[in-house]
């Protein structure tokens, strides 16, 4: 695996520059009280999509920004990378 990922701040870098942060999982709303099952779904279950998924990446060796990538897990084609917006990601 040696594909190129485009950091929204720094631009194109080898994937080894980055830390993979996993697929984006919706966090229960602050102030809510999720059931054990809901909490387990959030904490432990992943969709493991074979296709395009939204996921976290961190430019560990570069600008140290977290960003969101849309990547096809079958081909490693990265469709987009964007910084998290004010509305939040989770």
């Amino acid at each position, binding site marked *: 695996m040696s594909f190129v990922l485009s950091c929204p*701040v*720094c631009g194109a*870098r080898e994937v080894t*520059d980055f830390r993979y942060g996993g697929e984006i999982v919706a966090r229960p709303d602050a102030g809510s009280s999720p059931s054990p099952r809901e909490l387990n779904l959030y904490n432990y279950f992943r969709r493991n999509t074979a296709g395009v998924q939204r996921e976290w990446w961190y430019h560990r*060796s570069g*600008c140290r920004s977290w960003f969101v990538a849309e990547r096809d897990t079958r081909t490693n084609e990265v469709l987009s990378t964007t910084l998290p917006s004010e509305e939040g990601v989770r």
Partner: protein
Amino acid sequence: MSLDFLSPDLARPDRGFEPLARSPIEPSLRRAGARFEVRDGWSVAIDLGDAAAEQEAARSSVAVADRCALGKLEVTGPASSLPELAPGAAVHREGAWWCPVTAERMLVLCPPVATAELRERLPAVDLTTGLAAVGIAGPRARDVLARLSALDLRPQSTPEGGFRPGSVARVPAMVLREGGDRFLVLFGSAYAQYVWTAVCDAAGPLGGRVVGAGQDA
């Protein structure tokens, strides 16, 4: 409380103690036979015993120099509060390099004596001792970096003032093209001995030499 405990320039003679700031590369330089002088509170390697050869290496091959004493300030804040610079493009202004890392974070590089004054003016954290700095200059400088880093440092991709955060020798780093074939590499100071070894290992077979501050124009 303040953040004084981060600023090496605030050290002062006290109770008979005369604190001297030392580069994390000093032990390696000492082993290589460097001659040291105190400059601006730092112990600085002036040359490594053969000033003429060092000058020649800088001219015809590549010169590697310890520049850890450079002042380094991290300025953070909303993008609107920082000088307007596009990430990746640093500018040299008022004797300092202004290097935008992200829209909200900038690294300012300045001579040691200028640090205190800049720190007063800016919402800055003093990272002078957090980052080691190595100068790599000369016609083979890019060849040395190509042996250590995947960054695209071709002139068409990284012109003068180009500032590239990315991995060098497998550790997080930032590369600044100060001009022509002069590069400055910044990285975590705890990696200094390792990166210095890696840079010298790469430069040696290309005819490179370690040079003292006396050669580092």
